C-alpha cells in the first residue's frame, strides 16, 4: 500500500516538473510567432513570421553560427571529459606532491567572480597571443567546464576504485586492455554526464566568449544575448527555441553514441 502511495506521489511530482518545464517552452513557441500579445488576452493578438524571416535570412548567419558553435562546444566537452577523467584518476588513485593544491585549484574557476576572472585571463591570453582565436576560446571554456567534469569523474572513480584493474593485471591483461575493457565501460555513465554538462556550460558562455573571442569567434550565445538584453521578445524566443532544440538534439546524440559504445564493448567482451 505504502509503495503505491509513494508511487502516485512520484508521478504527481513528475507531472508538476513536466508542467513547469513545458509551459515556458510553449510560451516561447507562441512568442516566436507573436508580434503583439497584450494583457489580458490569452492568446497573441497579432501574429507574424518576422522572427522566422530574420533567423533564416542569410545576413543573420544564425545557422552557420549555430553549427560552428555546436562544433566548438562538443570539442570543449570531449576535451573536458578526457582531462577531467585523467585528473580525477590522478587525484583519487595516486599520491603526489601538491595533490591537495590541485584538488582545490580544480574548483577555483567557479569560486572567482566571472568578470574579475575574465579581465585577468584576457590580459594573459593577449600576451600568449591566444585572444581572438578559436583555440583561446576552447581553452577558456575548458577552464569553466573542468571543475564540473573533474568532480563528476572524481566521485565515480572513487566508487570504482582500482581493484578491478589490478585483478585484470593479475590475469595478465595489459594496462591498455584493462582500461579499454574494464575501467572505460564502468566510467561511461560519468563520461556521459560530464560531456553533457560541459557542453551546456560551454554553449551558454557569453561574456568570456565575447572577450576572449573578441568578436572573431562567433557563437550562438553571442548572437542571441543582445536580442534578449534589448527585450525583443519575438526574436529572443526564436533564438531561445533554437538554443533549446539544438541542445536537446545534441544530448540525444551523446546518449546514442554512448549507448552504442557500451553495447559494443560488452559484445567484444563476450
Amino acid at each position, binding site marked *: 500500500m505504502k509503495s503505491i502511495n509513494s508511487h502516485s506521489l512520484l508521478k504527481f511530482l513528475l507531472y508538476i516538473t513536466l508542467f513547469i518545464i513545458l509551459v515556458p517552452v510553449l510560451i516561447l513557441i507562441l512568442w516566436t510567432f507573436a508580434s*503583439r500579445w497584450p494583457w489580458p488576452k490569452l492568446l497573441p493578438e497579432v501574429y507574424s513570421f518576422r522572427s522566422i524571416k530574420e533567423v533564416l535570412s542569410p545576413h543573420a548567419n544564425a545557422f552557420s553560427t549555430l553549427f560552428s558553435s555546436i562544433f566548438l562546444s562538443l570539442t570543449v566537452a570531449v576535451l573536458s571529459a578526457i582531462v577531467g577523467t585523467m585528473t580525477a584518476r590522478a587525484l583519487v588513485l595516486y599520491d603526489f606532491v601538491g595533490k591537495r593544491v590541485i584538488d582545490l585549484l580544480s574548483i577555483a574557476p567557479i569560486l572567482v567572480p566571472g568578470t574579475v576572472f575574465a579581465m585577468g585571463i584576457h590580459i594573459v591570453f593577449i600576451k600568449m597571443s591566444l585572444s581572438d582565436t578559436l583555440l583561446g576560446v576552447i581553452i577558456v571554456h575548458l577552464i569553466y567546464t573542468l571543475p564540473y567534469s573533474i568532480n563528476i569523474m572524481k566521485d565515480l572513480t572513487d566508487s570504482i576504485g582500482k581493484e578491478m584493474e589490478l585483478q585484470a593485471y593479475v590475469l595478465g591483461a595489459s594496462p591498455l586492455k584493462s582500461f579499454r575493457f574494464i575501467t572505460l565501460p564502468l566510467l561511461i555513465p560519468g563520461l556521459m554526464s560530464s560531456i553533457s554538462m560541459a557542453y551546456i556550460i560551454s554553449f551558454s558562455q557569453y561574456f568570456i566568449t565575447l*572577450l576572449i573571442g573578441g*568578436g572573431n569567434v562567433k557563437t550562438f550565445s553571442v548572437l542571441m544575448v543582445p536580442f534578449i538584453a534589448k527585450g*525583443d521578445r519575438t526574436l529572443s524566443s526564436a533564438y531561445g527555441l533554437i538554443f533549446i532544440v539544438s541542445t536537446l538534439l545534441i544530448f540525444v546524440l551523446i546518449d546514442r553514441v554512448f549507448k552504442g559504445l557500451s553495447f559494443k564493448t560488452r559484445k567484444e567482451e563476450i
Partner: protein
Amino acid sequence: MNKRIITLFLTTFIVLILIVGCSNKDREMDANASSEAFNANRDFKEILKEAKGETVSFYGWGGDEDRNKWLNKTVAPILKKEYDITLDVVGMDIDDILAKLSGEKQAGLKKGSIDMIWINGENFYSAKENDLLFGPFLEQLPNFEKYIDNEDEEVNSDFGFSIDGYEAPYSKAQLVFINDSSVTKETPKNAKELMKYCKENKGKVTYAAPPDFTGSAFIRTLIYDIVGHEQFLDMKADKKIVKEKIEPALEYLRELNKYLWNEGKTFPATSGEVKNMFGDGELVMTMSYSPYSVATEIEKGVYKDTVRTFLFDKGTVGNTNYIAIAKNSSNKAAAIVAINEIISAKVQTTQFEELKELAVVSYDKLNDEEKKRFDSIKIGQGVLPQDELLSKRLPEMPANIVPIIEEIWIEEVVGK
C-alpha cells in the same frame, strides 16, 4: 621517486613554454610598433589604394536587427563594390568593447581586431581620455567637407566634450515620447502636464532607471524643462553644484514618484522592459531614443496603428552617435575609407529610408538630385516630421555631468 622527477620535469617544461611564448610575443609586438604610426594626413587616393582588398571590422551594439541588416545588406555591398573593402559587422556592447581595448592596451597589443567602433557620450569621453582611439581623422575625410555642416555644435562636441576629429557622425538620435491615442487622448506638452497625466493614469507611467540611456535622457529632458538647459553647458562637474541647480527638478521627480508604476519604489532596469510593458498595456506611455521607432514598430505589428509620437514644447534632448577608430586597429586605411562612405549622402539616405534614423548630412549641402531622393522617403505612421524634431532638439549635457545626475537620482529620487 621516478614519478616525482617526471612530474617536476613536466612542470618546469610547461612553465618554460609559457615564459618563452610570452617573450616571443613581446618581440613581435615591438616589431609591429612602427605600423602604429599611420598617417591620416595625406592624399585620400593613397589611403584608398592602401585600403583596397582589406577587411575592416565594425564593432557596435548588436541588438538592433534592422541596423545589422542594413549594415550587412546595404553598406557592406557598397564598400565591396566601390572600394573592394569587406565589412565585418561584430555585435558587442560598448562596455565590452572598451574593456577589450583597455585590456589590449595594458598587454601592449599593437594590432587589435577592432577597427571601427560605434560610440558616443560618456564612452567616447573615457575612451579618448584613456588614449584608446586613433585620430584625428575627421577633417581628412572628403565627404566631411562635402556633406557635413562643420558649424553644427554636435559635429564639434559630443555631450559637451570636444571631438577634435577623433570620431565621425553616424546618425542622430532624439528622445521622443510615445502613447496610444486610443488609450489616452492627451499628449503632455511639458513637465507640468506630464504630472497631471501621471495623476490621471496612476501607476501606468514609468521610465527605465539610469544608467539606461533612454531613462537617463528622460530625466535630463525633465530637468531641462524645469530649470532650463543653457546653464549646464559650461557647468563644473561638481556634485554639490549640480545638485543645487537641479533641486527643483529633484523635487518634481520625487512628487512624480507617487503616481508612477509601483509608486516609484522600483523602476524597470532597461528601456526594453518599459517598451514591452507599454506593448502589453501595462503602461500608457513609453519613450524612445529613435524618433521614428513608432513607424517601424507599427510596421512590425508590435504597436497598434493608433500609437503616436510626441515631444515637449521646449524640446527633448537629442544627441549624435559616432564612429571612432581604435588606436590599435590593424586596418586604419580601410576604416577611414569606410567611414567616409558612411557619411556620404548616398549611405545616409539609405539609413534614413531603411532604419528611419535621422541623417547626419546637412540638407543644405545636398545637390538637387540628392535632395529629391531624400524628400521622397516616406517616414511612416505615428511619427513627427524631421523639421519639427530638429526644431525641438536640445543639446546634451557635458559627458561628465551625466553620471553625476545619475548618481544623484539614485540617492535622492528612487523610493523617496
